[in-house]
């Protein structure tokens, strides 16, 4: 299937040049050297082609052959993706381990999706049906509960001439035949799609349903909408990965695509070992049964790291096309940008800022624009939400990757080293972060909880920014110099910070906060403020409020009240009423 199209003339790390055919296409997949390592054509000039190789090139010689495939770099899509763990170019890591042992050798070639495994398939079309690209031809059960909708390749359309009966099939067995013009085409459950080409949809819809993550600082304060894009920048040790893991665990998406892009091996192992044992709070099934993992760790070949982002988002779009809500985590997009920089440097391209190529911003935009809440070709609705971690050097947000990312996302979760040092987790700085989805998702909260979330949220933010201003004064003159009303703001802010914003990802109760619990906590914090303010205005000294037992009870509520015990918040409110009521009575006269 592949003919020699060139001969290697130059090698430097992952970049190889070869001379030969002028019919090799840009971004064509090629096989390099006698070991047939996978590569992609990234430049053409006369009869010279430049290839980035997805595997280690040590030991490769000039004069070795390059073979063409005629195809762009593509992924295989079909049942069997879920619960898989792939490298950056969709090679299944468990099979590599089986064949080669604990270390990744070169030249491993495996099918991305098992050709042997049979899936229970039920057709949804009949002979004579006219079908379009994206039409659902049938369904296969990918796990016990997950329905994989087998769709026609978006580029195809025609009339069904034959349909397989319900039964067990592999991904290469024919399940239907289609007449396209004069040709008849056999359809299987598997299709290929070039990773750098976004999968088509009918049109974009507004993003106004929040992606609920169970993380209070995200859902309550800086929500991202389904189909939205968010960035998490932060210096090392500030908790990017823990936050990404928490979202992957608890987000109310039906499919999670997690891309470990140039990060630690142990972190991917953690996900692999933990997810099968964690239970999805909504479906009651193991979390792994909705997860696709792409692991191209920092010591794996750098060009494959560049590809991993595209591999992941193409898989995400595929499930979106079925009508599912998909959340994609990319940890970390900075490592992907560095891979771009490394390849660009080897090509001796003119660098823009900090050695990054001038097309960095364009590539970032292309990636984030593949997020969206859309009407699919088959009439269903689905979404891809993207959460990209950014690792700015030295924690300096003015560097190019963070700055360009900010242009293409609408939700910015700024991690803060000093919060992390004080073990305030998630260390998301509430003053530097923002979400542009606030107005969009307000209606959803009102409908879901019957409460005016947006007003309460804004009131809490107001208190927090007031606190920031006041603590500047406190730093200069001490808290005693402030009037009691301002110190009341400090008290309530502490309640919000410790009782709401702080969340312990390792605590079984606190790790996931239901929407109901979040709004109750928010409401109570503001209620506490309102009552407290009334009391201090009558002249009660602030330490009486500070010393109320209910303060401690509130701060512990996040881990002492489970998501099923909402009635306990009524009790907590009673406590506030009782204890504040006493003070109120004392100072009323």
């Amino acid at each position, binding site marked *: 299937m592949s003919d020699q199209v060139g001969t290697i*003339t*130059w*090698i*430097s*790390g992952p970049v190889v040049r070869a001379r030969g055919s002028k019919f090799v296409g840009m971004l064509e997949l090629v096989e390099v050297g006698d070991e047939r390592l996978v590569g992609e054509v990234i430049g053409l000039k006369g009869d010279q082609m430049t290839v980035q190789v997805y595997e*280690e*090139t*040590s*030991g490769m*010689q*000039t004069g070795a052959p390059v073979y063409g495939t005629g195809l762009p770099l593509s992924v295989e899509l079909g049942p069997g993706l879920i619960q898989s*763990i792939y490298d950056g170019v969709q090679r299944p*890591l*468990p099979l*590599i*381990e089986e064949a*080669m*042992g*604990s*270390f*990744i050798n070169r030249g491993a070639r495996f099918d991305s999706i098992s050709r042997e495994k049979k899936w229970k398939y039920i057709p949804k079309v009949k002979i004579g049906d006219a079908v379009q690209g994206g039409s659902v031809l049938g369904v296969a059960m990918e796990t016990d509960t997950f329905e994989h909708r087998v769709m026609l390749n978006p580029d195809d359309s025609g009339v069904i001439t034959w349909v397989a009966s319900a039964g067990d099939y592999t991904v290469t067995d024919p399940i239907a035949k289609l007449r396209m013009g004069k040709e008849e085409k056999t359809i299987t459950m598997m299709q290929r799609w070039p990773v750098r080409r976004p999968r088509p949809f009918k049109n974009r819809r507004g993003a106004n349903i929040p992606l609920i993550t169970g993380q209070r600082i995200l859902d309550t304060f800086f929500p991202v909408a389904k189909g939205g894009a968010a960035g998490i920048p932060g*210096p*090392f*040790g500030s908790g990017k990965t823990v936050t990404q893991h928490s979202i992957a665990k608890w987000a109310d998406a039906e499919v999670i695509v997690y891309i470990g892009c*140039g990060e*630690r*091996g*142990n972190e*991917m*192992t953690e996900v*692999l*070992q933990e997810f099968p044992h964690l239970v999805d709070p909504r479906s009651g099934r193991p979390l792994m049964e909705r997860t696709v993992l792409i692991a191209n*760790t*920092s*010591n*794996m070949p750098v060009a494959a790291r560049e590809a991993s982002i595209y591999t992941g988002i193409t898989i995400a779009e595929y499930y979106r096309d079925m009508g599912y809500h998909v959340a994609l985590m990319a940890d970390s997009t900075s*490592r992907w940008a*560095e*891979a771009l*920089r*490394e390849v*660009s*440097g080897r090509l001796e391209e003119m660098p823009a800022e900090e*050695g990054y190529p001038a097309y960095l911003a364009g590539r970032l935009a292309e990636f984030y624009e593949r997020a969206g809440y859309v009407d699919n070709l088959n009439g269903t609705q689905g979404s891809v939400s993207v959460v990209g971690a950014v690792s700015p*050097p*030295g924690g300096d947000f003015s560097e190019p990757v963070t700055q360009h990312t900010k242009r293409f996302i609408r939700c910015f979760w700024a991690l803060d*080293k000093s919060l992390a*040092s*004080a*073990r305030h987790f998630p260390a998301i700085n509430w003053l530097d972060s923002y979400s542009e989805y606030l107005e969009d998702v307000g209606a959803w909260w009102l409908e879901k909880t019957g409460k005016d979330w947006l007003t309460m949220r804004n009131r809490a933010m107001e208190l927090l920014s007031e606190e920031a201003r006041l603590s500047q004064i*406190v*730093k200069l*003159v*001490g*808290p005693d110099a402030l009037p009691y009303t301002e110190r009341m703001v400090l008290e309530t802010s502490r309640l919000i910070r*410790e009782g709401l914003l702080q969340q312990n990802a*390792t605590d079984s109760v606190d790790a996931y906060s239901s929407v109901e619990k979040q709004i109750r906590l928010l409401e109570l914090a503001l209620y506490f403020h309102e009552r407290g303010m009334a009391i201090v205005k009558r002249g009660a000294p602030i330490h009486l409020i500070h010393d109320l037992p209910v303060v*401690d009870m509130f*701060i*512990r509520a996040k881990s002492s009240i489970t998501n099923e015990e909402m009635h306990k918040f009524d009790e907590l409110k009673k406590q506030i009423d009782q204890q504040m009521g006493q003070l109120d009575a004392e100072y009323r006269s």
Partner: protein
Amino acid sequence: MSQITVQGGQEVVGVARIEGPILVVEGAANVSYDEVVEIQDARGQLRRGRVLEVGQGFAVVQVFAGSTGLSIDGTRVRFLGGTLRIPVAEEMLGRIFDGLGSPIDGGPEPLTDVYRDVNGQPINPTARIYPRDYIQTGISTIDGVNTLLRGQKLPLFSGAGMPHDQLAAQIVRQSTLGKVAGAPPTEGEEFAIVFAAMGVKNDVAEYFRKSFTESGALTRVTMFLNLADDPPVERVVTPRAALTLAEYLAYDLDKHVLVVLTDMTNYGEALRQISNVRGEVPSRKGYPGYLYSDLASLYERTGRIRTSKGSITQIPILTMPNDDMTHPMPDLTGYITEGQIVLGRELYYAGIYPPVTVLPSLSRLMKDGIGKNRTRDDHPRWGAQLYAAYARTQDVRALASVIGEEELSDVDQKYLKFGRAFEREFVNQAFTENRTIERTLEIGWNLLSMLPKKELTRVTLDEIAQYYKGDDAAN
């Protein structure tokens, strides 16, 4: 200079260009990328090098020992046809080698037929075992609040003149496999130690050698030494040679291996030097754009795999230029390693040893190696509480420096006292003091008992009932 272990290969007489440690050789056919070469100068002296780039009819070669004395016509370059390999054997424990893996202790070449590529291969993430077993180092600031696990990479971030060498030596001397608090002491399983020195002073290497001798560990230590006056280019190979041996000991022989790499800053400089000579596009501070990937190819050679009982734990040491943690070396290291232990000058000047600045220090894997059935149930929350309280102390200190200690509230005064005691009693310990995990937890609770119960919101009420020793009424 050592003997070359690979024979044969094509030879080219004369080179086209010499720039620093880089040679451009013309007229060689079928050269492989990353191939090892042997270079002979006009007087017949041999040195080794490696191919960095190949093109049609030319190859760019990096000479490990530098190009001093090489001439255009008088140099012979022989391409040896394979990548750089070193012999590995159990008997290398107790021996000393140069930065390329040749013996310099007067002993013979290791007798083995096992040769391994120094570049190693990436571990498949599915083949790893996630680290869960802690190492008791006997140092409170590590065991208590930045617990080290077997299979973790945890660097020491330090600065010139601070006692990072002593701390590393103490860790190496005292480390045993951790056990549950209260469990009877058992004969600790001992670690094999692989020590790689890159561009450090002879005194430093000597200090470690002496320290290993005194603690009786020398027979289970292998040292790879590239000292300050050795060729800088060789430094790029030294940690790779050390890790290649460590992988053999851990994954082939099932040993628990502790790897100490010092000083990674010198390693980075060697890398920068080569990059600059080659005219590569620099990123930050002149370091090459692939510094992150290059460092990852070292640090990621840590961990445990399912097919072996052994483990590799890495303790790289970095001296931060100008104590700047945002410098590319500590910065990129921190992004790859699983936490960091930061030494601070302020504590050092205050006479506290080890001067571990607790707040910026971190062990990412700690959460998985402590708690019930590992150390003690209260450990995670106890640690978070100590951190939070000490962080508060910093704020109070800042305030006190403005308004004076007398003006502080009662609670703040207590935090101030807590902070001082924390540094003197918890952080500070003798170079020879080996604390058990019970002792570390006890000291922590004693300190927390200086604060009112109401302030302790990170620990549970039950834990307060069980371990709190203070007189809350007086507080």
